[in-house]
């Protein structure tokens, strides 16, 4: 529902005065999606790490073997951290926009879109279900940057 309303706003209001507020809401919803992914992933990561450590000890192997077992999970964790960082950068870009400088927003939004895509891949690789909020955030943010790129090309 939130996604549909945001898309409607982008279509109807374009790059008017409410663009900043729409961007703020989009970042909020994306952060909520990231938080949901974090809630889903963290206990599964803990469980996978315990299993990997137990297997490594039983096999009499070393730390390198443990990290090899955890490689895919670490990939997912890394992509989540990338989204976490990208969102904080986007927040700073929004603050600058509010202060009159919107030059950083598109780049920051692009980084968030990229991080969202990598996170979706990372979660799929470890068999963790992708929260609906995450899929919808990706669709919404992609639409936002596409609309802005369309405007720039005119």
């Amino acid at each position, binding site marked *: 529902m939130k996604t549909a*309303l945001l898309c*409607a*706003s982008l279509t*109807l209001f374009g790059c008017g005065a409410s663009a900043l*507020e729409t961007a*703020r*809401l989009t*970042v*909020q919803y994306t*952060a*909520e999606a*990231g*938080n949901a992914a*974090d*809630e889903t*992933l*963290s206990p599964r*990561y*803990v469980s996978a*790490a*315990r299993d*990997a*450590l137990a297997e*490594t*000890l039983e096999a009499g*192997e*070393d*730390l390198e073997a*443990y*990290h090899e077992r*955890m490689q895919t999970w*670490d990939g*997912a*964790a890394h992509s*989540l*951290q990338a989204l*976490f960082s990208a*969102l*904080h950068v*986007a*927040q700073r870009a929004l603050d600058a926009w509010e202060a009159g400088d919107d030059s950083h927003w598109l780049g920051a939004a692009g980084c968030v879109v990229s991080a969202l895509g990598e996170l979706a891949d990372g979660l799929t690789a470890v068999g963790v279900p992708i929260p609906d909020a995450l899929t919808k955030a990706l669709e919404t943010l992609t639409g936002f940057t596409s609309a802005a790129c369309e405007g720039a090309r005119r």
Partner: protein
Amino acid sequence: MKTAGLILEMIARLASVAAGALGGREKEPAKRVEEVWTQNRTALAKAEADDAAAKALEPN
């Protein structure tokens, strides 16, 4: 002319629905990232797991 009028009316109605639906949201300021996602729990879990593995698997 009639068609243009109908289209304009439709857009106005859509805008009013969207504005009304967003009305509650617009009165509340959007939350900041740090209010919504306070810490990366997976990153903390990874750090702890790596530490535990290093201690358990360090050569004697």
